């Protein structure tokens, strides 16, 4: 069941300027949330930002009662989060949306995870789930430059497989887009049972062209401007193939690429 939780900021970890993690005490949400789901976060400012912002739950610890988010500073909401003193309280509406599916894969299966920049956010929890289910995963993390890839520190020891880095400028890892790094592996014969991806729309569009021909079943964690996060405003739609518009907050955010009109 969705609920509006009060949460207290207990920890902030900075990967590089403008790229950080925040951890909140929020026991009920920590128990309820599944990998891939998100929460609508309200920072305590009345006028601006006025609406809540959606953040994927990066990880949750039911025992400790904590939930963590990985954040990239963009505008008003994220700047407020960046400056917020420890022990501040926020409101978290969640859990929202659907979750990644893992349970149906047989033990020993190999999956791929593709993340562009802050698109890495939903994957710590998924990677732990994958390891626990006895699967292996290659983690492809792309960014514009070395700074954007600083978030990789959050994944140390979490990846049951290979970590592949790619940067547009070649400063770290393979040079070029992360989708190209994936395409090279697929071209060389690597096979995956499923692919999970999160990143900016241009990355998804490029990725759809790779996974389609490879017939690689995929789950994309999509992003759209959200007014409410629970299906009430119809502001967050994405053009679909089976119907004109998909309501991304309640039918997603995790969608298979064939359902999206690119």
């Amino acid at each position, binding site marked *: *069941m*969705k*609920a*509006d939780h009060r949460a207290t900021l207990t920890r902030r970890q900075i990967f590089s300027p403008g790229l950080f993690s925040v951890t909140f005490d929020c026991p009920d949400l920590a128990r309820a949330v599944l990998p891939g789901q998100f929460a609508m976060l*309200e920072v305590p400012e*009345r*006028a*601006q*930002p*006025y*609406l*809540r912002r959606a953040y994927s739950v990066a990880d949750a610890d039911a025992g400790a009662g904590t939930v963590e988010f990985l954040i990239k500073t963009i505008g008003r909401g994220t700047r407020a989060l960046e400056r917020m003193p420890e022990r501040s309280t926020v409101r978290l*509406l969640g859990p929202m949306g659907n979750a990644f599916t893992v349970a149906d894969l047989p033990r020993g299966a190999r999956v791929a995870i593709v993340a562009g920049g802050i698109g890495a956010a939903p994957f710590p929890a998924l990677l732990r789930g994958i390891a626990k289910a006895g699967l292996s995963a290659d983690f492809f993390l792309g960014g514009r430059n070395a700074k954007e890839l600083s978030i990789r520190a959050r994944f140390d020891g979490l990846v049951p497989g290979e970590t592949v880095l790619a940067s547009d400028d070649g400063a770290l890892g393979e040079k070029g887009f992360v989708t190209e790094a994936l395409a090279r592996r697929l071209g060389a014969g690597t096979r995956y049972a499923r692919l999970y991806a999160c990143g900016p729309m241009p990355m998804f569009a490029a990725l759809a062209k790779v996974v389609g021909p490879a017939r690689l079943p995929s789950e994309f964690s999509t992003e*759209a*401007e959200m*007014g*409410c996060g*629970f*299906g*009430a*405003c*119809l*502001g*967050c*739609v*994405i*053009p679909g193939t089976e*119907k*004109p*518009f998909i309501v991304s907050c*309640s039918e997603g955010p995790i969608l298979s690429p064939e359902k999206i009109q690119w």
Partner: protein
Amino acid sequence: MSDPLAVTLGPLTLNNPILTASGTFGYGLEFTDFVDLAAIGGLCTKGLSLKPHAGNAPPRICETPAGMLNAIGLQNVGVEAFVSEKLPKLRACGATVIANVWGDLEDDYVTVVRALEGADGIAAVELNISCPNVRQGGMLFGNSPPLTRALVAKVRAATRRPLIVKLSPNAPDLVESARAAREAGADILSLVNTFVGMAIAPETARPRISFGTGGLSGPAIRPLAVRMVYQVAKALPGVPLMGIGGIAELSDVLEFLAAGATAIQVGTANFKDPGVSGRLVKELTDYCAARKTTVAALVGRAHRGGGRVGGAAGAEG
């Protein structure tokens, strides 16, 4: 003493004056984790049309200072699916349902209202003649008193249900629109819908919303909406009004009641705080209990007692 929160608006009696506004409360069912639908005065459905409607291309919304712009384009499941799939569940929750309807042409409104006539569990019909986000219909009716009059008269003839007409704040003369709707048979007037606005991304010099313009809502519009409710209440005394615009707190509710509204609708605030409507009912209950007063006694207080209110609304003394 009768229930201090109960209000009567012409033929419509409600348990309390806190309703939720069309398009900001889905079909109600999205909110059952947050609000006891039976505890609020009523809910207005997303605008219903005869056929399912896909709405506008994204991006459809953007945040603005103390509010938002939207151009959803009246996406809805259509009246038939509403009656067969949503309404039975709403009835099971004990909700007081107000069906908000719209159309491109006069006859579309009439057909939707007729399609609702056979359905049980609809307390009233609210005509949206004020949506700024569709190319046809909608606001075109609301911005012209003669068109308003003709449309409302036709719909009036098609239903025995309490008829609410939702006015456009973009109309050149709101009082004239209100008068036209009332004279053509509206039992209740609700005001206001969103104000036409625009936001442009400086980086691209393109509108932030694909439709170009959008409807402005949220606390940013509250003083405008309060002024409009005050004006219409003053010009048309005795006509029951529902006040809408940026309501998020108990003090906002009291403000609209004082301006002359007998009930209010909470809109955009539902998005950031889905439990807000239920909370307002509780707070208003406590407020009335602590002051041994009734909601009815709070209505129109700004018009009484010799206070001077200047400007376009005129003075009373």
